[in-house]
């Protein structure tokens, strides 16, 4: 049998443990959370993001390395600015990496696919990816094929 002093102390530690669990869960596992370290953000501007959504995957070579944090419209250029959060494990992406928005299968979700370039400089937090390919919108493609409205060069 422990002394009553020790018992009260252990009970206090137990309650502190519960409060620590509360803070951990609230900050790490809900929408009020702050994403912990271990990641960095890069942006890329597309003329059209199609149906890309926040929290879509960011892939490189088919491996998920991050996710889309937010998508907003640049008020001056009317380009869509996509902010991506990429895991720290992949912090040596070349500066001339290109980003394109592609679709998984014909009806699948859209995601951002990165293609590494050859520059010795690497992307760091807050950098912008310069080379981008917009989403292919299926209706526009079909329309171009059917009505040949692309322009008069063929």
């Amino acid at each position, binding site marked *: 049998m422990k002394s*009553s002093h020790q018992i009260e102390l252990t009970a206090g530690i*137990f309650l502190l443990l519960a409060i620590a669990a509360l803070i951990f869960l609230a900050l790490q596992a809900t929408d009020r959370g702050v*994403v912990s370290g271990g990641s960095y953000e890069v942006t890329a501007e597309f003329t059209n993001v199609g149906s890309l959504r926040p929290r879509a*995957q960011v892939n490189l070579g088919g491996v998920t390395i*991050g*996710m889309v944090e937010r998508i907003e419209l640049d008020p001056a250029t009317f380009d869509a600015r996509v902010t991506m959060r990429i895991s720290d494990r992949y912090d040596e992406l070349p500066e001339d990496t290109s980003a394109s928005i592609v679709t998984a299968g014909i009806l699948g979700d859209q995601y951002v696919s990165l293609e590494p370039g050859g520059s010795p400089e690497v992307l760091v937090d807050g950098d912008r990816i310069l080379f981008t390919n917009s989403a292919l919108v299926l209706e526009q493609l079909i329309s171009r094929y059917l009505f040949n409205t692309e322009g008069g060069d063929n």
Partner: protein
Amino acid sequence: MSAPTPATQPRMQAVRDFGRALLFLGKVISRMRFTRLQVAETLRQIYFAGVRSLVIIVTCGFFVGLVLTLQSYDALARFGAADATSTLLALSLFRELGPVLTAILFAGRAGTSITAEIGLMRATEQLDALDLMAIDPLERIIQPRLIAGMITVPALVLIFNATALLGGVVYAVFLMGTDSIVFWGNIQNTVELGRDFGHGMLKAVGFGIVASWLAVYYGWTAKPTGEGVALATTQTVIATAIVVLFLDFVLSALML
């Protein structure tokens, strides 16, 4: 306690039991006093109900998280949605599994011991002795256990949820190679603090009240024999499990 009541019909027995439990709770609340001695005794009861339940809560939480992630990862991977595993895990833990499993485990681990302890005090006439010494047993014995249970259950739910998420991380991140940014990012994008986590904790508070109320009530009304105490202990577990599952449905329907 009271004058012998006329025998009620068996079918009214359940209603009468419910009324008695409600009156009992009202009596305990109306006689509550918060002296330094009471607070110290409540802390001691938090130790017996909470700290001593930690081993089973942590073990159970970890393996529930592990196996839930294992099963949902396998099922979701067939649809190419393995990244949604963490969201599924967090939502089902916060909203249902955490509060319900913890309340039932609490009834089995701590509720039974509270019932047996009070029932034995009744059987060995310790409660009557306290009464003779002008010490109110409702205030000295029941109140600390009731309040300790109400505090302990939400605390245990928090610890259960945290360890279960840890189990999920072990399987999804360490064994299956999901990136930890994707794991936590998906949770943070989907799980709402108020609607998912907050409602789950409201349930936890409700279950805490029910579980500790039933434990002290069955102990208090146990027949003063060995058989009576054994029966009361069994009833605590059964009643808590049924009431918690029923209340879970009602609260879910109300809050969704």
